[in-house]
């Protein structure tokens, strides 16, 4: 099973060493509609688990994206400025938002794995 984890607010986090990549799930992008803009944090910013990490906007909605895990922002997906549609096309891959250098891997405990998230989403509809 992969190292990807999910929050109840439809964020995903993928851990690779001490770098965590964060994005929103396919379910989330479908709910939002066409993504028109993503407001990303500044590189170097420190974010606590549960803090607002980004804001994703569609034409008629704006949604905060919360950090599933604490860390320091080391990279943001600059492609999203010119091509916010990537979030719709490939939310789990090229539509990633932020990469964090994390401090505490244990924060991932309590987050859902892929199967648990799939079940959770099914119950929502």
């Amino acid at each position, binding site marked *: 099973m992969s190292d990807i984890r999910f929050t109840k607010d439809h964020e995903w986090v993928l851990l690779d060493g001490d770098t965590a990549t964060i994005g929103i799930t396919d379910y989330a992008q479908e709910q939002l509609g066409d993504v*028109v*803009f993503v407001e990303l944090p500044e590189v170097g910013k420190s974010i606590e688990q549960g803090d607002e990490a980004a804001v994703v*906007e*569609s*034409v*008629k*909605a*704006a949604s905060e994206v919360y950090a599933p895990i604490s860390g320091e922002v080391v990279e943001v997906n600059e492609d999203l400025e010119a091509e916010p549609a990537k979030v719709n096309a490939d939310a789990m891959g090229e539509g990633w938002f932020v990469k964090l250098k994390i401090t505490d891997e244990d924060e991932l405990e309590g987050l859902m794995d892929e199967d648990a998230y799939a079940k959770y989403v099914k119950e929502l509809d």
Partner: protein
Amino acid sequence: MRYLPLTTEDRSAMLARIGAKSVDELFRDVPEAARLNDLIDLPRRQGEMEVERQLKVMAGKNTAASDVPFFVGAGAYKHHVPATVDHLIQRSEFLTAYTPYQPEIAQGTLQYLFEFQTQVAMLTGMDVANASMYDGSTACGEAVLMAHRVTKRRKAVISGNLHPHYREVVENLSDFGSYDVVREAPRPNGDEDLTSEIGKDTSCVVVQNPDVFGHVRDFSALAEAAHANGALLIVAVPEIVSLGLITPPGEMGADIVVGEGQSLGNSLNFGGPYVGLFAAKQKYVRQMPGRLCGETVDAEGKRGFVLTLSTREQHIRREKATSNICTNSGLCCLAFTIHLSLLGEEGYKRLARINHANAGKLADMLAGVPGVKVLNDAFFNEFTIETAKPGRDVVNALADKGVLGGVALNRLMPDEKAVANMIAVASTEVNTDSDRAAYVAALKEVLA
């Protein structure tokens, strides 16, 4: 009642379908304590003729600008509005249309907003403008809040020569938002230098051009000083006709330009409704308040227009909105854009030249009156005079002689002793030789 189409029969039929015996049943959720037994104590309905009669009496107690030699400015200006403008804004489809949230049946409104935004950006020399704010003063207040958002700082430096009403609006918003305002003393001679006031905690510097005393200045150096400290320069333009002749704030390095559009297309209206102009640099567009109209295509590939970047607004962002403003000045905005379309490049510039020439003539004539000093070397269509008498007394005495000669600056700044004997005098294209002669004659008598 002429505006209510339902008849007694209609009402009975409707109640029958609803299943209620009377309209009172529909109000059953109103608490007993709040149910009124009688009509509220106000006059009963009246026909058009009676209403007209009453309102004409009230209107008759006012001195209209067109009836006397008129030189009042200080933020609102008397200009001639072509007949076409008022005719067009009264077309049903403009007057009685709603906000263009259903773009397919609102392309009329949306296209003129797009044209308006373009015109405002052009006039101010900026990249982008919104679809208007309530007025110049609230646009100024919102600009300061926007500067705080952009710079993430909390202190605004406000020119002492900014229209006091504009300053008070900024101070009010700052007060309630817990922001700081550094307020300078006015400098009637127009020699204010704010450079030393700007620090690394300053979010913006706010100036006015022409300022409340009428001085016209170059703010390029101030813009550089602001930028060197990471602050924004906000320039307010209460007389939009001035940009037909003066270097626009955009060319001086302004980051945000706000203005009052009343001079074009809109009557004096005792202070409102007016139309606030708001323009900024492209990079700040997502932080702008107010409505924005954008170009796009429809399902058949035809060009069309829609309200856009709506996620800044309160109906979506709610407490995180860039502003709580829920409107623009619609019809006033339309009047502005029609007037400017009629003028065109040549007409607008010529109008500005006429204003400036008239003001120059008047300034020279008033300077020739014993006891009158004109404070301005450079001005557009408004300048300040100083006499030996309190400004308010002079203005009132002139009014008694049938001349509305300007605004006593003391009325706007009662705490500033320096301006006690000063009057802001405006002169536009409406003033004639006869108006100027009447002013000079009356002023001589008043000062004698």
